[in-house]
């Protein structure tokens, strides 16, 4: 600045006698014009959430997964309403009908035909024609008790998703609080809390879940409870590690100096800074919960009949999957898609929140 004015101006030079010196208009130049100011465009600091959003939507797999998850959720919400059937209504006269969809049936697929392998060879059966039910349509077919599979699949998806969401959110709250508190207080508190978590982590989750399901009455709440007890460890580890990183930073010190209480520092100062990692972990725990629920149902410890979940649908259809394969395909497809999409969504989120992280 000093060089531009041709006068010898230094901050405390002997030649400036501030009392005698008279300021001239050209002593000062306007610095605000665009040529003179240099804004660093390469490393400009942007809104964090804007960056996260840009990185996330730049990831094709994650976006496709997000769209698929939204579609599946919408179908789970409205799918059962799209037909006249209910998930528990049985029509024993209309059992084991193959899928039949209006309009598409004219193309030769989904027209209610199914081929059966018999001792005399393969033969084609059409339940609709055999029983003269020309205006009856089961979009995904009907099961061994004459229930509409379309309705049951979306009903089951709804229950599976409900269980997974409830369990994941409760796990998040427990694990997050446990990890944050353990990491924040450190010392003996941390030592004891970590050892407890380590011991709990040493117990195979599935064993605990299975045993709990044996003791408690079957149902939605029990499954959520069983998942809640076992799945919070991962979340607490992440929260603790992040807390250990952040608690030494200056903003925490500043907050403490200003007289903030522990509770305030933990949940109002540190938590907002790790929300990205928490959300990512939440996304990862949803497919785990869906899988565990499906496993429990498959073993016979799941949702009681006539309600259904994806696991119980697979388990039911498994018994006749060689004769009526169309019964097992929809629940398996939905389950696999859900797991895949949630995993990819979580991967995308993790990369969006923390691009420095190792590519997994």
């Amino acid at each position, binding site marked *: 600045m000093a060089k531009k004015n041709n006068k010898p101006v230094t901050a405390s030079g002997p030649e400036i006698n501030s009392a005698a010196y008279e300021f001239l208009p050209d002593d000062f130049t306007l610095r605000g014009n665009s040529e003179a100011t240099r804004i660093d465009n390469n490393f400009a600091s942007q809104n964090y959430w804007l960056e996260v959003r840009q990185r996330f939507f730049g990831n094709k*797999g994650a976006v496709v997964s997000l769209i698929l998850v939204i579609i599946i959720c919408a179908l789970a919400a409205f799918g059962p309403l799209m037909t006249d059937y209910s998930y528990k209504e049985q029509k024993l006269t209309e059992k084991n009908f193959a899928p039949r969809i209006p309009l598409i049936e004219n193309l030769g697929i989904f027209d209610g035909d199914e081929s059966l392998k018999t001792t005399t060879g393969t033969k084609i059966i059409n339940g609709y024609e055999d029983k003269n039910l020309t205006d009856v349509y089961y979009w995904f077919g009907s099961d061994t008790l004459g229930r509409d599979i379309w309705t049951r699949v979306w009903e089951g998806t709804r229950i599976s998703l409900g269980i997974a969401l409830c369990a994941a959110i409760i796990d998040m709250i427990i694990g997050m609080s446990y990890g944050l508190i353990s990491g924040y207080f450190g010392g003996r508190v941390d*030592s004891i809390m*970590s*050892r407890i978590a*380590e*011991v*709990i982590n*040493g*117990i*195979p989750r*599935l*064993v*605990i879940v*299975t*045993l*709990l399901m*044996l*003791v408690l009455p079957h149902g939605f709440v029990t499954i959520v409870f069983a998942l809640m007890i076992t799945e919070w460890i991962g979340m607490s580890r992440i929260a603790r590690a992040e807390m250990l990183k952040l608690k030494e930073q200056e903003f925490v010190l500043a907050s403490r100096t200003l007289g903030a209480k522990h509770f305030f520092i933990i949940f109002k100062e540190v938590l907002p800074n790790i929300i990205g990692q928490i959300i990512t972990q939440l996304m990862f725990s949803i*497919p785990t919960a869906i*899988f565990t629920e*499906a*496993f429990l149902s*498959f*073993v*016979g*410890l799941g949702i009681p009949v006539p309600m259904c979940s994806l696991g119980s649908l*697979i388990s039911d259809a*498994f018994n006749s*999957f*060689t004769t009526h*394969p169309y019964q*097992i395909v929809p629940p*398996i497809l939905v*389950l*696999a898609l859900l*797991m*895949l999409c*949630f*995993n*990819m969504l979580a*991967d995308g989120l993790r990369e969006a929140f923390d691009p420095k992280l*190792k*590519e*997994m």
Partner: protein
Amino acid sequence: MRKYILKRVLISVFTLLAITLVLFILLQLMPGSPFNDEKLSATQKAALNAKYGLDQPLTVQFLKYVYNMFRGSFGVSYNISKNTPISQLIQSRLPISIAVGGMAVTLGAIFGLILGIVAALKHNTFWDTLCTIISVIGVSVPSYVFALGLSYTFGFKLSWLPMLYSAGQPFTSSVMPSVALSLFTLASVARFTRTEMLEVLGSDYMLLAESKGIYGGPLIVRHALRNSLIPIVTVLAPLIVDLMTGSLVVEKIFSIPGVGSLLVTAIQSNDYNVVIALSFIYSAMYVGIMLVVDILYGIIDPRIRLAKEGDN
């Protein structure tokens, strides 16, 4: 080092004790009694309770229980096959499960490694994308979905392989279950190997090795692979455990007379003693594997050991 190992062992013992306590408490909470037959009179029930030591105080029962558990005598089965000692039931089934599981681990590890290495060497090409797709699918789709798919295509439609396990042809009938089980291991190992290899390949010492004139096979195997294998040890433990849980359902699908299907049958017929015994065995195996991996990792990578010692 000794302090580190000692600490790990202590934690494992505590974990096992905690598990035993949980199992014992759950056993007390189980609904109904093992003797559900309505024809039994009260005196007969009392006699049965006395026979199985169910009339003693809980603390005595627990101590006895711990003693028995750690000795490997799990009592007798109440329901599945009456009065057969559980250890005997398990003895005949464990080798089958281990054979199938071992085959799955070997398959998964070998093909996972190959896939991961190929993906890393051909980074950002078609092979890399293929590897990523396979690993994402393998990690997220449950193993019984694969099992059902394989069973339908190769067992039912094509009849290449037997759909159900038969003791007469143990190898051919355990191909499909092993493949179905191995996919998760394969996918995880491939994913992990790829990441680690990419990191190692980009490091300075690889550049040095290359400029010293080492190339091709020796470069990859001796310099890159060896260093990237270290962290892969850590994923093995959770993988083996996932394998154990996956085997429960897969064994049921292929009706393999292994430990997993025994557990499923026991759950369904409320044979608590068997459930508890198998839970204990699973837990003990899990704890043991975790311990071995922790110690191995401490030996391989001193930073871990020092970090964990520094925890306290």
